[in-house]
């Protein structure tokens, strides 16, 4: 890939990471290229799975929807030849599992889970997660408040205090 293409991709990604709904024409103006170049590059990156989706960051609290998010630390025994991948797959295939990361340190997998109630989450842990043979132990942490998520500060911010005009 030539430098120019790489630079364009980086510009696009930095922008849409924060706002995937940006108008492509406007984005092209801001980056200083043609709209068709942006569209082509995005299509290519979608195909290459560099762009994995266009999700929306939702404050479910404000939406008035009851929802609990849990972070579950999981210690497992890695399997011969397959390491952690097979176990991770068994976990991430559940639709209520939001994220699974392999982690360095005192435990192995970090599983993020979204459920409607505490009970729903604990049932998942006791009925689905713990019974997996390779799972040695779990520790479940419930999220009480999201201050910042996906790089976005979720708590209300102050108004700008700049004067209207200054030299």
């Amino acid at each position: 890939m030539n430098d120019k293409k790489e630079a364009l991709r980086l510009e696009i990604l930095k922008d849409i990471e924060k706002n995937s709904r940006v108008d492509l024409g406007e984005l092209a103006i801001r980056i200083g290229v043609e709209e068709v170049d942006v569209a082509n590059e995005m299509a290519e990156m979608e195909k290459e799975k560099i762009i994995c989706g266009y999700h929306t960051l939702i404050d479910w609290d404000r939406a008035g929807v009851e929802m609990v998010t849990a972070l579950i630390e999981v210690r497992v025994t890695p399997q011969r030849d397959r390491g952690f991948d097979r176990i991770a797959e068994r976990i991430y295939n559940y639709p209520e599992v939001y994220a699974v990361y392999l982690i360095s340190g005192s435990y192995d997998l970090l599983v993020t889970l979204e459920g409607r109630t505490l009970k729903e989450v604990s049932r998942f842990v006791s009925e689905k997660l713990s019974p997996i043979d390779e799972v040695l132990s779990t520790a479940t942490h419930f999220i009480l408040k999201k201050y910042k998520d996906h790089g976005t500060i979720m708590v209300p911010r102050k108004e700008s205090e700049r004067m209207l005009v200054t030299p």
Partner: protein
Amino acid sequence: MRNPLSKKIVDIQPSGIRKFFDVANEMEDAISLGVGEPDFDTPWRIREEGIFSLEKGKTFYTSNAGLQDLRNEICRYLERKIGVSYDSKNETLVTVGGSEAIDIGLRCMLDPGDEVLIPQPSYVSYLPCTLMADGVPVVIPLQYKNEFKLTVEDLEKYTTTKTKVLVMPFPNNPTGSIMTGEDLAPVAEFVKEHDLYVISDEIYSELTYKGEHVSIASLPGMRERTIVINGFSKGFAMTGWRLGYCCGPENIIEQMTKLHQYAIMCAPTTSQYAAVEGLRNCEDEVQEMRRSYNERRRFLMSEFKRMGLECFEPYGAFYVFPSIKEFGMTSEEFATKLLQEEKVAIVPGTAFGECGEGFLRISYAYSIEDLKEALGRVERFIQRLRAEKQ
């Protein structure tokens, strides 16, 4: 009772558009494209360092010239950015914003009657500071056709045997104009030929969008006749911290430090500690802000083109300087009417010198969303003006 006031000070004209500024700043629910400071908060790691220094009780004066750590970092930074090396002990002074450096720099270099070349449109303080230093300000009106760059032809017209100092305000507030190495070379030759000194106000040096900023001090033979003024306000989004600096030949900096010592003592200690962190670890944050400004700049230029508003493409600072000559109004009339009718505050070009007549300074230190809202109103306004004219 005797008049308590000095004639020299009273004779200095208050800014002609002070009234406009007061009206605009009082206006409820107006939106603005008129601000001369970044919309970004100071990067957190800088703020945090300031807080930490307070927690540790670092609340005393620093040495007059500034924390040695900070001066070291400033010199490393300038070496890296403009390729000029200064001695951090004897050629570097930390000031209260770039503004203080402009003031004491002129005071240190001028004897009564010495002439100072001030290219305009430019920042508002060069002229009154020259007067306070008993110098004679000589305004060089820059030309739209030259994209408000300073040329040797301009210099030739205004240089006399009394000319001592040339102020170089680039990247420029309010025009956004920059001077490239190529643009600077003939100016530097002229300066040497006429044995002038340069006060180079490079406060917007981090904010250039076409190649890297070039300092006139980096040109052959110019280091010994230039004071480079810079600071943290614009590039590091630290306006309220009031922190700037200047570097230059030891004999000038020594005298400036003397003045600074008597008038100021030292720049704010908290700000100095915070700034050390800025110079050491905030290159990414600074570049991210620059990237963001550049996007807004392109967006604004494209919008003006669409609206048919005449404007050269500026590559520096965070201003564009469109022409409003087609409407047959003065800049101040235009700005006042726009404020009244659409509640958008924009600074008339004349705030920065008479030759700013017929232009507006539009700041893009705003989010794209804010720019869109404001530009929508501006567009409605100029469409109305055009319709009225027909």
